[in-house]
């Protein structure tokens, strides 16, 4: 399978804490994307990082990419209850998504 695999499968934190989730993939990529899915909704594109980038920021999101380890991480800083959702990674070649990381942020 060429899908991305997210880890951990579930994460529970309190508001204000940081949340880190990881993604591993198997083939060489040109880019890696992170998506969020709120319960009962479609996925929303969060951020894209290209293979020649090591780190990228967007608001409270920070994504890193290590092509030598075929892995990426998504950091959400100062989490809010509204960040409660499932998070998925995917490359442009692997449009199948893993099971995702289910993030629960409690007030």
């Amino acid at each position: 399978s060429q899908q991305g695999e997210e880890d951990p499968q579930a994460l529970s934190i309190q508001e204000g804490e940081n949340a880190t989730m990881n993604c591993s993939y198997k083939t060489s990529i040109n880019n890696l994307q992170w998506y969020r899915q709120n319960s009962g909704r479609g996925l929303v594109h969060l951020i894209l990082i290209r293979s020649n980038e090591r780190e990228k920021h967007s608001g409270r999101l920070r994504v890193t990419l290590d092509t030598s380890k075929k892995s990426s991480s998504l950091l959400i800083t100062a989490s809010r209850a509204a960040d409660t959702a499932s998070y998925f990674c995917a490359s442009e070649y692997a449009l199948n998504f893993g099971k995702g990381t289910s993030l629960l942020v409690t007030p």
Partner: protein
Amino acid sequence: EAGVAQSPRYKIIEKRQSVAFWCNPISGHATLYWYQQILGQGPKLLIQFQNNGVVDDSQLPKDRFSAERLKGVDSTLKIQPAKLEDSAVYLCASSSQTGTNEKLFFGSGTQLSVL
């Protein structure tokens, strides 16, 4: 900018019946995707169109599933006959990119229950 539109939002059918889902992508988006998401799993790509041509349908169960994108705009996905294991959310997505799969925009999906 209007998003990806899907209908119906919910559908309940009995096994062996047929069902169709409709998707209208964002205006101007050449690439359209259909995904199946079973409860507790990530979305699985069923078929990808670029304009009205099929790019990838390797995971589409062609004995019962069919999809078309006439005129390269909206698309329909059909299941005939449906099985219990087809119960899932069917997501449509579109992208303005051609040749690369970047920044997909998803609709809210159609939740199918097969009884």
